[in-house]
């Protein structure tokens, strides 16, 4: 951005200071991730930069923690679990959440405020309380320490994100499109699958991604509800931190960050595609 001719020196200083401050904050956001990646190549079993690493001596670096991770059966299982639980929970929350958002965005929906409040309560209620409640409840109906229990718990935690994003997408949704479809002779079901669904798909996907990440990064409920069979990645990291803090978790995290970057890119591309479809110029 070029500066206007009327800027005084003070204006210019502020102009640059503001940018410096912003980049400092962005740096703050990224610092832990930036620190984590080199440490995952540490040759030593500690979370500190060794002298070799600082002098860029190749001996200070190794792939042993990646190897550790790839060879460990429990890590492998936890990855399977994380994906299994995450995907199953996401499917449940995306389906139910999208349906509910469709209902909520209808103007004739009764008691909208109350229902919305209940539906997003999993996001509002402190996790420890949710976890404790589910722990007692699931124990009493034989769902504790089962996959189904963890999946249901995570689905509940993920739905608010789907409801919120899909509702927001529907606010911008042009309802005359569904009317047009009905007018052209399409039944309500057909209208949903051919018109509504393709158009709100970006919202569903980004809500689903939020739900997936919620499950994928969730530890408190897992600690309470899951058994050893259902250990997820965060749960495995948790015992890593309790037992012996080895850089394996950093290796895992580095890999996960790469996955996150990929997912974020997908979201961004989807968003641009969505805007193109809706006729806005991609920004």
């Amino acid at each position: 951005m070029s500066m206007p001719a009327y800027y005084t020196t003070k204006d210019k200083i502020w102009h640059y200071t503001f940018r410096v401050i912003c980049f400092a904050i962005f740096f703050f956001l990224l610092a832990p991730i930036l620190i984590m990646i080199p440490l995952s190549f540490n040759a030593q079993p500690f979370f500190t930069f060794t002298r070799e690493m600082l002098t860029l001596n190749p001996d200070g670096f190794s792939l042993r923690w990646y190897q550790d991770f790839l060879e460990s059966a429990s890590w492998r299982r936890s990855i399977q679990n994380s994906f299994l639980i995450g995907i199953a929970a996401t499917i449940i929350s995306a389906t139910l959440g999208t349906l509910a958002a469709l209902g909520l965005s209808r103007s004739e929906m009764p008691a909208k405020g109350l229902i919305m409040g209940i539906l997003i309560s999993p996001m509002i209620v402190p996790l420890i309380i949710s976890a404790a409640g589910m722990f007692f409840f699931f124990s009493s109906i034989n769902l504790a320490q089962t996959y189904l229990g963890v999946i249901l718990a995570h689905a509940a935690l993920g739905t608010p994100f789907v409801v919120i994003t899909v509702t927001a997408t529907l606010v911008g949704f042009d309802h005359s499109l569904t009317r047009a479809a009905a007018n052209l002779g399409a039944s309500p079901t057909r209208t949903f699958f051919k018109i509504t669904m393709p158009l709100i798909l970006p919202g569903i996907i980004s809500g689903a991604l939020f739900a997936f990440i919620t499950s994928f990064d969730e530890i408190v409920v897992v600690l309470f509800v899951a058994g050893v069979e259902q250990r997820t990645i965060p749960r495995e990291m948790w015992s890593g931190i309790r037992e012996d803090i080895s850089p394996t978790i950093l290796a895992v995290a580095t890999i996960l960050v790469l996955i996150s970057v990929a997912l974020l890119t997908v979201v961004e591309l989807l968003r641009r595609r969505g805007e193109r479809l809706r006729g806005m110029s991609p920004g």
Partner: protein
Amino acid sequence: MSDSSPDDGFVTFDRVQKSYDGETLVVKDLNLSIGRGEFMTMLGPSGSGKTTCLMMLAGFETATSGEITLGGNPINSVPPHKRGIGMVFQNYALFPHMTVGENLSFPLEVRGMGKSEREQKVKRALDMVQMGNFAGRRPAQLSGGQQQRIALARALVFEPDLVLMDEPLGALDKNLRERMQYEIKHIHESLGVTVVYVTHDQTEALTMSDNVAVFDDGRIQQLAPPAVLYEKPDNAFVAAFIGENNTLRGKVDAIDGSTCSVRLDNGSVVKALRVNVEGTGVQSTLSLRPERVVLGEGAAERPNSFEAEVLELIYLGDHIRVRMNVCGDDEFIVKVPNNADGRDMKVGQKAPVGWSIEDCRALDPS
């Protein structure tokens, strides 16, 4: 102007009422009958219930009471997607994720039509609106006028008997708008389809329609062909809403068959056509078109003739609007064609104005 011969009652509204909130009636006791092949326009100010009527006809709103029939059958219990009515939405409502071709093909597809037949019909519809080459484009890649044509083609491609259009030209600029008015009118005539058209632009209504229903406050104020509407408004609202209008207020002095004399507030007496006057002594609004007022030579010979003063001249290209003081009314407008006669008028100048009895209509007081 109307050259269709409406077999009364292809679409009828029978004592239809509509309320959204249970407290106020948005449509109040609507009775309306539209003939097959007719181009019928609903005209009215914003909020007068035009869209609501259209939506009830299309099935997106339910009438609170009363009955709507289509081709003689009540349609209250027919869901929208089974009514077979084409509709052009105000914002076109083209499906953004489909190409133009897919948009047009959609109504045929849901009717289970075969691929080759579909393609053929789509092509014919596109050609009709002169957009034959655009089948592969997305709506976002079209200009407003082009989108409008596609919306029209889509509403017609499945050959409905009835097409509804809700202010389809509202978002277009003047030039494009005029071109599209012409095209829609042309298509209506060549296909013989029945059209219910909503607008709040009176020029549009007058130009295009066989019949115009003037809406206000949830009621039809007058239903008539354009010329009748302009020449013979039934009440003050219609007179004021259609075209430009000078209004003079006064009390009815005497009634003489189809004419009457009205004494204005400044004492002048005006002779006018008796249209909507109950008796002598009541208040009345006189309505007079600016272009029917004769200014200068010839004015004195008219049955109504007054001395007037030019207050303002407003140049409008093809004509000049002259604001004058006539019978104590400062807002009296006279339209003078912008040709030799009109060019040398001056502010402050005095001149006689006059008009004939049949051009001045005595209406209800409001």
